């Protein structure tokens, strides 16, 4: 029964991967990766349940946050073509 849920998640992941390879614009790909991340979280949680190991939930939690940060980073990169162009004042660079 739970295997059916896992199967559904896997099928959806395949659909997301399809969109990420095909997506004509970059935003399609970002969307697909974001959805894939959430699906991974669900898959890990379901799998943790199936194998009676609650430690996997820590992993799922971490990945939720990392997925968010990654999507924001990519969106910012695409929107502004940079990740944080400095705006002056600091002459010593970053060292």
């Amino acid at each position, binding site marked *: 029964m739970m295997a059916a849920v896992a199967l559904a998640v896997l099928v959806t992941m395949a659909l997301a991967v399809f969109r990420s390879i095909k997506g004509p614009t970059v935003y399609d790909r970002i969307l697909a990766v974001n959805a894939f991340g959430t699906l991974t979280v669900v898959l890990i949680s379901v799998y943790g349940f199936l194998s009676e190991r609650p430690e996997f939930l820590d992993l799922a939690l971490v990945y939720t946050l990392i997925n*968010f940060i990654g999507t924001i980073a990519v969106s910012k*990169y695409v929107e502004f073509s940079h990740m944080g162009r400095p705006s*002056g004042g600091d002459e010593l660079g970053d060292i």
Partner: protein
Amino acid sequence: MGFMAVIGFAVARLRNLFAVVMLTGIFSLTAAVLYVILDAVDVAFTEAAVGAGISTVLMLGTLALTSSEERVESSGGSKWALLLVVATGCVLVYGTLDMPPFGDPTAAIHHHVAPYYLEKSGQEIGLPNVVTSVLASYRGYDTLGEVFVIFTAAIGVLLIIGRPKFGRRRTHRMLVGELSNSMRNNVILRVVSKLLIPFILLFALYVQWHGDFGPGGGFQAGVIFAAGFILYALIFDIDTARTMIPASITRLFLALGVLLYAGVGVAGFVLGGNFLEYSVLAADPVSGQHLGILLVELGVGMTVAAAMISIFFTFARQEH
């Protein structure tokens, strides 16, 4: 695993580097799921945090500095190269056929050190998470080497691209136009990030200390901690973020972590044992081990977090 094959193929073939970066993110995710299925939670943890998150962000930083299309070098598609690669692949696969099946109890790897660690870890160290006990205590010297590697990588990045070129003195103040260019005026993102960042940092601390009992430990905690700061830098101005965590602090923590780890090792032989022997650190050996592992993991966490933060900021501050 079919996923990984398809994605790997697509990564090699696509010319658009941005799509490639996205696909490597998905690739790392499928690797993490694979590790989960293989019951290696700590590895999956690190793979998800580093491979799918930080690596994608850093690769994007690189893309921002270079072009986003791969320059097609038409080398003619040498047939001999393909043949050689296929032949090597076949030889490798043939080599693995001789390996004992996965999980085979008679395999050599399960006979010498591994059962010793698994059996003795309970008595000698007394931590539920054997991965941590192996990583930080039994193989502590290797882990010290790993921390040094991360430290060196961060220093390498700082040395190579940390300083602007001569003559590029940026003396103009931030233009008003720049202000609207940043994500500063994006209320939704700002509010949500302000809510999330404390949780992320708290979670990093939880992973750091809980690594003794569940999956986690210094490496993962350092990455998550850095991710919190990276989120802040992404949403708000990078200069604002830099004032929050100035370069001197990251440099300090970068070195401090390694110093702490090596210091625990030195304390080991000052107190009468060997280098990195934790048993002599406290009254009885087991608490000594606990204390040693605690301090050592803290050192790892500090260095990893500082390294990730400095590498990200170094990448992001470059001009085109």
